[in-house]
């Protein structure tokens, strides 16, 4: 007989192999193909921004938890690293380093820690960081480097406008859509990533690849990406049909900007998205509609970040109205 003490606890006594760290790690793995492509497109600056983003977020979370909140540090669950990577993906690679650090601080300290840390934040921290930088440093956040130029040297990048900003500016100046189409990359180029933009949004193909991996690993479910992209497609299609001279094609709307990045990785963030499948569909669809409204009728060329943040605020309400059906409430035939 053993001399060791027996352990007593409530059931269950076996557990699934899931863990928070595995979920976060899966997200990092899913984003790596897009990351590698970005480094290929933008060069050393993309690497700089990503490394800075991830390390700043992790370091800030550690410092805040250990020295300000005086609790055990939870950086090993990987959520700070994911926030850092996603924030970096939302930035142009020619952004000054100090801005990245400030953005990371805001994302971790204000958007996550003030609400109580992992699991308690109502808004997606990476998006809050991005929007904060956008509102505070609009010029730096709206000048993107020309892709495939000066990639491996630390020189000031040559800038070039993104397809969305070309369209927005062009429409504002009264140019017809047909004239603008020549200035923007083809849909195929947009799809595989032969284009400029923020670090993470360039290659739709690789983002989808990562998304399929996450679906297979059951980290995300199909409802939010499909409903969001579908809603953008349909709504943009309706607008295009009603006014072909003033609106781009639905395919353009879906392939440009951070639609796929937002749909697959940011809107599906577990903490800030609804719990039930129907809730997720409503959430995704409304994000899509808001994105198109902001893009077409609003002042900004890109609306995904704002749309997601607005809908994050509605998640508790959506959850309230999409509760699961309780067993035993049916009338038996």
């Amino acid at each position, binding site marked *: 007989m*053993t001399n*060791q003490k*027996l352990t007593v606890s409530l*059931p269950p006594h076996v557990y*699934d192999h899931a*863990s928070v760290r595995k979920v976060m790690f899966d997200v990092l793995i899913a984003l790596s193909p897009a990351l590698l492509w970005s480094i290929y497109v933008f060069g050393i600056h993309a690497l700089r921004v990503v490394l800075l983003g991830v390390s700043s977020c992790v370091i800030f979370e550690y410092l805040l938890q250990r020295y300000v909140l005086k609790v055990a540090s939870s950086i090993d669950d990987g959520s700070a690293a994911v926030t850092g990577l996603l924030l970096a993906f939302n930035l142009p690679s020619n952004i000054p380093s100090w801005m990245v650090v400030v953005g990371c601080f805001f994302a971790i300290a204000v958007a996550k820690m003030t609400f109580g840390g992992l699991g308690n934040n109502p808004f997606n921290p990476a998006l809050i960081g991005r929007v904060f930088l956008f509102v505070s440093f609009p010029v730096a956040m709206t000048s993107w480097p020309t892709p495939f130029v000066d990639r491996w040297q630390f020189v000031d990048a040559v800038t070039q406008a993104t397809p969305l900003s070309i369209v927005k500016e062009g429409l504002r100046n009264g140019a017809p859509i047909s004239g603008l189409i020549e200035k923007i990359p083809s849909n195929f180029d947009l799809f595989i990533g032969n284009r400029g933009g923020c670090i993470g949004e360039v290659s739709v193909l690789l983002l989808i690849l990562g998304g399929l991996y996450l679906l297979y690993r059951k980290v995300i479910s199909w409802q939010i990406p499909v409903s969001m992209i579908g809603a953008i497609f349909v709504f943009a299609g309706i607008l295009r049909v009603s006014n072909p001279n003033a609106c781009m094609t639905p395919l353009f709307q879906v392939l440009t900007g951070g639609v796929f990045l937002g749909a697959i990785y940011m809107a599906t963030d577990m903490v800030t998205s609804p719990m039930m499948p129907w809730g997720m569909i409503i959430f995704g669809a409304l994000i899509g509609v808001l994105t198109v409204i902001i893009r077409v009728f609003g002042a900004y060329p890109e609306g995904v970040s704002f749309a997601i943040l607005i809908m994050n605020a509605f998640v508790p309400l959506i959850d309230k109205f999409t509760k699961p059906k309780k067993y*035993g409430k049916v009338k*038996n035939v």
Partner: protein
Amino acid sequence: MIMKMFNRLSSFPKGGVHPQDFKLSANRPIEFLPPPKTVTIPVSQHFGAPAIPIVKTGDKVKIGQVIAKADGFMSTNIHATVSGIVLRIEKCMDVSGYKRLAVVIDSQGEEWLEGVDLSRNFKADIVLTASEIIKKVQQDGLAGLGGATFPLHVKLSPPKGKQAEILLINGVECEPYLTADHRLMLEKGPEIMVGIKILMKALDVRKALIGIEANKIDAIEHLSKLAKDFHNIDVIALQVKYPQGAEKQLVEAMIGRQVPIGGLPIDVGCVVQNVGTAFAVYESIQKNKPLIERVVTVAGESLKRSSNFLVRLGTPISYLIEIAGGLPEDTGKIISGGPMMGKALNTPEVPVVKGTSGILVLSRSFSKRDPVLPCIRCARCVSHCPLGLEPYLLMNLVGKAMYEEAEQEMIMNCCECGSCAYVCPAKRPLLDSIRLGKSFIAQQRKERVKP
């Protein structure tokens, strides 16, 4: 044959998890375990009021003799499981985690009560009437052997106005490691069939269905073959999913009806019984043998011989573990029941009772819980809950002592299957909080009724 079976597999529609099977003792035939020198028989082995001892220290008892009488309708008789002398009647540690009244008997010889049929003859004819059957099972102390230990005669006496249409036999055994019901179905098939017929007669139902999980193909084939001779008894293969064997889920999987909230299966016209109970009914009615023994699985990865034993009630669990090869050095937990809903014991010196379906020995590495992280709102607990509850919300509410809101969220509906805590990636003690909330609310409900 297998393809046909898989095409017919049904299951409960919502939730459920797929823990690993670990059916280590599936191929070990049932071995009869001779009783040890002393047995400790608790007077409370069933749901309801504990029985009242009717013997005193020094009395001689025979196997099958009533040593404690049922206290009221919701109670069962307790019988001596060995012959010998009553040593003492005192509070002893049992599976409940506390000391409760038990009768300790010193085993001497093997003297059975008069009238018990010890022969190996198989008796298929049922002579007793329905009411006689119910009275006999009440006398013989039968209770549900699936684990809930509901007194059988109560289940067989539905309240006025409610009539059962169909009998469902639970041969599912969805908990990992447990194989007692599996072996019973393979080795005592004919007796189980007769037991089912007896139950059908007692309930006055025309049809019975036996539900078996698809990981027990040999049992499905064996009982399907036997069922051909018994018309109106059919075998249904069910998908391997936990908690397939939980009463509400079984009813939905087998006949597609949901038991209403706060109701019982009789409300949708069916009664559920475990295969072990069916076998015990056969022994009671055909062989005049009270409930004095049951099949118990003893299993564990580090255990030398994971086995299925036919054990006299009152045998200490330490004795079973000794016979199965001794308690391994790296033991962390000893569990009575399965790993999903079983009770971790604080000592192996507790007796086997009517509800003991299995003993598990888990190693130390399996026994430590991981650190708890905050809820990441992944909704895995919600999607895996078979009853449509939201465990993350219930834990939240109980933590804030918001018991009324928890009651509105139907926390009392929870069957405590443990699926939520099983899947949680943040390793949150969801079931701990839900059980705490349920006990508070049960207390509050009792106090509401008080004048």
